[in-house]
């Protein structure tokens, strides 16, 4: 017999036999999987970074489809992936407010009053168990848990306090979770000017107590609350706070920041504009 013919025939028969088996098995053992999971997974960045708190992107995709997670739950994909996921699931437009991390303590290691020698695990959560080495019980401990928590390299320690690179910050909130003193929060930014205004102090004590522990803490003088034209600044006890519902409508917030005697009202500097778009 012609070897070519035999080859073709035998391979063909083999292929046929296996195709049949596969077909049968496929029918017998088929598992129904929601095709939307694959689609949602496509819309996610697949970085498997874990910033959302789920095990993996696939895990998150399954949960989104099940309804256990919001379409905008991926902090990295941001508005774009949220929009696509919402589209896939037929939910329509989803509003995602973009935020950046701000640090409510701006004191350098020299400006904070040091009261103890700390020996132990070099992490903020660990140091916080002992109160750390500085007198202020509300300020930055300075061991950089937030730096390690950030997967985007957006935070670095400068002069003993964290500095957020707003260009890199995705607003995922990992740093805020990592900070044992809750000094870091996520706040919206001014879409016009691309910057976030915030109070760089978290100490609610009265002026003498603040002055004892820090050179630059908020002393609760109410100056910001008095000079703001639309009440965008208010006092929470002895600590100035920003009302983000109003502050970007305010016409004079940079003037308010200028007037603060302790200069604790800071701006993040310009956030990359295309993120807002």
């Amino acid at each position: 017999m012609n070897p070519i013919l035999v080859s073709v025939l035998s391979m063909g028969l083999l292929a046929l036999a296996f195709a049949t088996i596969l077909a049968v098995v496929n029918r017998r053992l088929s598992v129904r999987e929601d095709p939307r999971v694959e689609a949602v997974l496509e819309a996610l960045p697949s970085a498997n970074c874990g910033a959302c708190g789920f095990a993996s992107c696939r895990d998150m995709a399954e949960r989104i489809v099940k309804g256990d997670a919001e379409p905008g739950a991926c902090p990295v994909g941001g508005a774009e992936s949220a929009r696509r996921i919402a589209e896939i699931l037929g939910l329509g437009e989803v509003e995602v407010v973009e935020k950046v991390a701000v640090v409510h303590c701006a004191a350098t290691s020299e400006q904070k009053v040091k009261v103890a020698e700390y020996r132990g695990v070099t992490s903020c959560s660990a140091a916080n168990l002992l109160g750390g080495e500085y007198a202020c019980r509300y300020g930055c401990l300075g061991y950089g848990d937030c730096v390690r928590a950030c997967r985007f390299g957006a935070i670095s320690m400068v002069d003993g306090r964290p500095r957020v690179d707003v260009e890199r910050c995705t607003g995922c909130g990992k740093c805020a979770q990592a900070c044992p003193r809750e000094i870091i929060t996520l706040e919206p930014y001014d879409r016009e000017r691309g910057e976030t205004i915030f109070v760089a102090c978290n100490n609610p004590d009265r002026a003498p107590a603040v002055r004892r522990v820090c050179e630059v803490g908020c002393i609760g003088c109410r100056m910001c609350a008095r000079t703001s034209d639309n009440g965008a600044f208010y006092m929470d006890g002895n600590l100035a706070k920003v009302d983000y519902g109003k502050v970007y409508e305010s016409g004079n917030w940079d003037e308010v920041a200028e007037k603060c005697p302790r200069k604790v009202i800071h701006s993040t500097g310009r956030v990359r504009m295309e993120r807002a778009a």
Partner: protein
Amino acid sequence: MRSFRGGVHPPYNKATQDRPIERVSPPERVVVPLSQHTGAPCEPSVEKGQEVERGQKLGEAKAFISAPVHTPISGVVKEIAPHPHPVLGEALAVVVEGGGEMEDWPRGDVDPDSLEPEEIRMRVREAGVVGLGGAAFPTAVKLSPPKSIDTVILNGCECEPYLTADHRTMLERAEDCILGLRLVMRAVGAERGMIGVEANKPDAMEALRRASDGEVEVVPLKVKYPQGAEKMLIKALLDREVPTGGLPMDVGVVVQNVGTAVAVTEAVRDGKPLIERVVTVAGEVGRPGNYLVPIGTPFSYLMEVAGGLKEGVSQVVMGGPMMGIAQRSLDVPVVKGTSGILFLREVPPAEEGNCIRCARCVDHCPMELMPTLFVKFAKGERWDLLESAHIMDCIECGSCAYVCPARIPIVHYIKLGKLKVRSLK
């Protein structure tokens, strides 16, 4: 001699064991924190400017797990404000100014068998008695166990180096210890009373035996740290193991510190609230010793009473060196859980080496845990794995860190890990 597995033998340094308890005349200003115990802080029951009598209640315990606080001196309430606290860092405290010499509290009389258990519990609770061994758990709560109790154990081990307050208490107040034990037995309905004492205190055992007329068992135990940990003590005395996550009452036992027993006696017999306690002051001070100190006395005042500091003190610890808490300043007051104040010169080196997996920590852990895993997971921030490694069973006795040749602050990692495990739930 009876004991438990694991444990360590730190140098005991009990230089103050021959120094009789000495009463400290009260300072002019005491700071009485409203939270000196495990559980909910109590609420102030006085106002600023109010005059108070010695023994008057300053704070009322509203929650079940709580204990009231009383003023150790007569005087005027100066302020009610946050104040440095030796355990909590900062807590609401009542400041009383006054002073004058303190007299002995008038002694009452009581027959333990004639009192109803409820009456005992009520008096103990009103007196604000908490465990004086260090953990400061409200005693009245321990006296109302929801399970049946067959044995009450008095803990006279005092296995922490330096501390001798319990030793002196047993020696000088043996009868009050025994009476306290009988009151506790009456309150929980237990038949059996035992006192476990480390074998290095034969004089204390002798005194207790004499005072007890053989009714309670005074048992010598192997000299080994942490013999005085509740679970280790129960294991050594009764060969019962408290189940993981459980309490002594799960094996039918209530454990009380000997100092607590004396406080119970005073509360029930004399109606005296817990306004003073025995504190061992040791280390680099002029006159180390055992002092009967009013609660709320600042450490700095006590330091002066004890003869002032010597050269080169770099660390002040409240409690023993194995489990005590390092203090940031001497402005903190003596609280109910202050068993000792140590002024230490030598401090363990700051440098942490690599774990060489020598397993000394594993071999010495009295809870038979794997501290290697705790450090590994905590360093790798795998908080999820810590709980399944049984981190919550750790009693933080410090044996592992004590023996670690790499000088790893294991207990620090464990405390951090526990914090994270709790916050993940």
